[in-house]
């Protein structure tokens, strides 16, 4: 196979490497360690982090792209295929290959719409035909319920077994770290006496495993979430949408941060005409309706891409360029809120005595900004980043629904919802596409929000040690 690195793949890789490097560098900083320890103590935060981690793993698997080699007849070595696929595509190859003709409901054995069929005697009648793949192993459709339950139980058993392994590994590690018997470690975990909220982690992992395994076992023979208009499995669409959501949520922040941080700090610290200029800039930008600005930029970018097909070697590259451009556009238009916040905080910090003391020492301005101002703003940046993530995922859905989001060929929750608009007006109604998009997006955004909450509580100096702070002075 031949690896292909799309632009967004490269940026995601960079982001990942950056976070690992930051974590490594911050390991020595006790304040950072304490803050992350507080995150680890938070039960809802850790449970949500497990769910979010599953989404991230799926997203990363979907970010490793390559061209598979085709076994050309007569040649010893395969020829690279034109199509770019990802690791995830390979893992769920079954889902990709088992396309039906059109809509079918979850766990269906027959198509959703009636067709004219030809009977044994050449007699024509209208009925819903059997699916090509969904439940095709069944001799008679009536045995479906028993088969589904059997496979689900199998899945639950497998999931539970894996969970037991996981729990045993955690208990073993803890028992070794605290030098106690495994049963004592087990009891400590469940009574919540551990520094890291292991009970929440294990509970969340249990739920994820007990849902994922039955679904995986069933999806081999059934379309668990049904199929869409062109007969493609909805589960596949939902899984592929995760990467789009993650890319939009993280890369946009990456684009936005430099604007917000640099301009916010400069405006707040330097004041004068620089402050005026930056304020005018973001007030003007803010006064243009956001969707309008984004729509205009996206349409211009679309025209540019459409008029230069020679820039892209494959459809995947073109879709990727469009996704990246959307991130950039969202980022450039959404830095104003954080910038204003950082400017206000810098105005406050500038008057603080430790900044004045540094000026009295003759510390140069860039150094004051880097050592005294920026570190004291980092909690705001961190909080804004995680809070914005869920907002951006939702923004992508809205934009794609309006038709100015990602490329129509790119899987995303927005395009799924957009398609559901027509499906909902059919009779009988097709509900599973929308439901799948809803459930996946809900889980993703909720877990991101809960993690964001835990991070904010741990990093915001005003919330840290709230009980201590509540004491009156005397």
């Amino acid at each position, binding site marked *: 196979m031949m690896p292909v690195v799309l632009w967004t793949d490269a940026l995601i890789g960079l982001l990942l490497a950056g976070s690992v490097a930051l974590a490594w560098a911050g390991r020595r900083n006790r304040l950072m360690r304490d803050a992350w320890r507080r995150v680890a103590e938070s039960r809802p935060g850790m449970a949500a982090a497990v769910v979010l981690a599953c989404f991230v793993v799926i997203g990363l698997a979907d970010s490793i792209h390559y061209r598979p080699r085709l076994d050309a007849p007569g040649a010893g070595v395969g020829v690279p295929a034109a199509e770019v696929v990802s690791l995830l595509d390979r893992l769920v190859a079954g889902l990709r290959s088992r396309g039906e003709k059109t809509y079918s409901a979850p766990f269906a054995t027959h198509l959703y719409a009636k067709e004219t069929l030809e009977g044994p005697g050449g007699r024509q009648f209208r009925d819903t035909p059997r699916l090509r793949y969904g439940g095709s192993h069944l001799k008679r459709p009536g045995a479906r319920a028993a088969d589904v339950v059997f496979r689900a139980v199998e899945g639950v058993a497998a999931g539970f077994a894996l969970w037991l392994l996981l729990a045993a590994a955690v208990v073993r590690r803890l028992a070794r770290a605290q030098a106690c018997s495994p049963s004592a470690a087990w009891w400590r975990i469940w009574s919540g006496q551990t520094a890291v909220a292991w009970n929440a982690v294990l509970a969340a992992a249990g739920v994820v495993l007990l849902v994922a395994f039955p679904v995986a076992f069933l999806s081999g023979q059934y379309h668990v979430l049904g199929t869409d208009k062109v007969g493609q499995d909805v589960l596949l669409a939902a899984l592929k949408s995760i990467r789009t959501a993650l890319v939009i949520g993280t890369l946009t922040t990456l684009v936005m941060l430099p604007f917000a941080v640099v301009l916010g700090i400069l405006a707040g610290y330097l004041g004068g005409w620089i402050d005026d200029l930056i304020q005018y800039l973001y007030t003007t930008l803010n006064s243009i309706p956001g969707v309008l600005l984004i729509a205009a930029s996206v349409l211009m970018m679309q025209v540019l891409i459409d008029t230069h097909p020679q820039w892209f070697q494959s459809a995947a590259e073109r879709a990727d360029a469009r996704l990246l451009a959307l991130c950039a556009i969202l980022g450039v238009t959404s830095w104003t809120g954080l910038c204003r916040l950082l400017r206000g905080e810098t105005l406050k910090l500038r008057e603080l005595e430790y900044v*004045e003391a540094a000026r009295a020492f003759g510390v140069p301005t860039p150094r004051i900004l880097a050592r005294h101002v920026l*570190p004291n703003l980092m909690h705001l940046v961190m909080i804004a980043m995680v809070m914005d993530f869920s907002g951006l995922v939702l923004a992508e859905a809205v934009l794609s629904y309006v038709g100015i989001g990602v490329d129509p060929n790119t899987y995303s929750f927005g395009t799924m919802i957009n398609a559901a608009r027509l499906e909902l007006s059919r009779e009988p109604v097709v509900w599973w596409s929308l439901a799948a998009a809803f459930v996946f997006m809900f889980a993703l955004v909720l877990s991101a929000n809960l993690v964001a909450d835990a991070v904010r509580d741990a990093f915001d100096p005003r919330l840290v040690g709230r009980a201590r702070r509540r*004491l009156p002075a005397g």
Partner: protein
Amino acid sequence: MDRSLLEVTGLSTVIDTPAGALRAVDELSFSVEAGTTFALLGESGCGKSMTALSLLRLLPEAARISAGRVALEGEDLLALTEAEMREVRGGRIAMIFQEPSTSLNPVLTVYTQIAEVLDRHAGLRGRQARQKAAELLAAVGLGDAERRLGEFPFQLSGGMKQRVMTAIALAGEPRLLIADEPTTALDVTIQAQVLDLLAALQAGRGMAILLITHDLGVVARLAHRVGVMYAGELVETAPRDAFYKAPRHPYSRGLFEALPRPRMRGVPLATIRGTVPSLTAAFEGCRFAPRCDFALERCKVERPGWHPADDGQLVRCHLYAAGMTPARSRARPARGEAVLSREAHAPLLEVDGLRVHFPIRRGLLKRTVGHVRAVDGVSLAIPAGRTLALVGESGCGKTTAGKAILRLIRPTAGRVRFDDNALDGLEGGALKRARAGMQMIFQDPYASLNPRLPVGEIIAEGIEAAGDRAARERTGELLSAVGLDAGMTERYPHEFSGGQRQRIAIARALAVTPRLLICDEPTSALDVSVQAQILNLLRDLQERMRLSYLFITHNIAVVEYLAHEVAVMYLGRIVEAGSADEVLAAPAHPYTQALLSAVLRPDPAGMGRAIEVRGEIPSPAHPPEGCHFHPRCPKATEACRLRYPGETRLSPTHVVHCHLFGE
């Protein structure tokens, strides 16, 4: 004796913290008679405010009253329902808070805020309420009450706001007034006015006052009985005069000895070693034992009970148990006069005609319509190894002057010479080099250290900025120079107490080996015993390193203890300057006289009547014509209204700006 108005028995309040239950108030018992003032005295963190909040049942979420009885006129407050309690709060018990600027709602008029209480507790509305509100404002000494009713808090000065707060508290005709540090946020002259007002109101209404304060001077002025709190419990109760004559508990004695006084000059102040213990711990013996100089074996194992001492004092100390002969006082260092040489030196710092004017901009185009004359022609000189105290009330421009000397604020005019280098007009590197010998120590030790940097880096910053890269090793040395452990460089500021933080700030300033330290109220955020430690440290450093201090403060007691020379500032100008003995013992300017007479002495007997100073400091944007002080001056003449008085030399060192002394 009649039944007391307020009787508190065995009150305990517990706060649930992650570190365990914190016993903020522990088995507190006291009573307050109608028409008298009971003062709860103690340093920060000893549970004074928690006691007040417990009485009103206004505790924060995490806190609860675990035991005890609070009886107001015989009725148990802890047994009341929340609805009944609302009748008590603001009605029978009212409270005045520390910070007048935050206890009034800024978007409501004075009348609305008084009327709220009148409606709730007196059932007054409409014209009646308005009339009553005007009467209340008159009662708290606010002139032109009708007009004041329609004003918003931002139109009032600090002292007026505290008067309005008092009027609101009085609106419910309370039997008991709880005053939580009522004057701590106010200037000396205003402080005296408010305390006199409280005393007058009490005499007129027969109200009981529960005074919560850390200031021995306030207690001396207002209290009838005193209760000293330490670590959540009362350690001594006494009638005021007996308490001031001879405090009994070792902690009370420590508090008195830690106060800077003029006769202590040149002698280190007594300090209480150690810190207040964490209240989450379970105490076995006496809570003060680890810090006590007289501690016996018994103190460590057995909790002391109440023992009577003479003069009606009750002391929770084993030293007063039957059969013990309490040591009178600890051994003191011998009294010695200041050893600093008095010969004249060429001044290290010379400031001439320093002015800082801030433009007032109005309108769309930000045109300058006037100037705030924060500093308006200040001249002073400090020789090496001497301390000049710049004294004045808040808003007089003393801090701005300090920062302008250091060029943290750009002066509008004037010359600054430091160590024979003129600083004016210098920029960038040249300025940095020229002022290298000056450093500043700030007021708030919590705001002056970057919370994200370890202490070692904080201290090293100045050395590195001065270009000395290999100076990291000196940080440990500097920490030990200010009395901290040299191994603490890796710790973060939040791991230190207020006093320790101030020591770190001093170490940071010393890192660049300055010759002049500008100290901006370095002890005003600290407790008395910690203040003594910092003053001792500053005095010791001066002797060892021949440092000069420009000591900016409003605390006259500190000035008396530390300063060699004093300059009194009023509205951006120095009105009187001279050696400490001349200015403090024989003040010439009426403002200096008023300022000194308003200082609260920790001694009920030695308290003369304060010279009445009307009103408050005018705005520096529109200083009065003529002498700035004439609208408030009791001795003002026609000449004072016309022109600013010139300099009159009373002695070679003593200078005053006042027409009373001119020709």
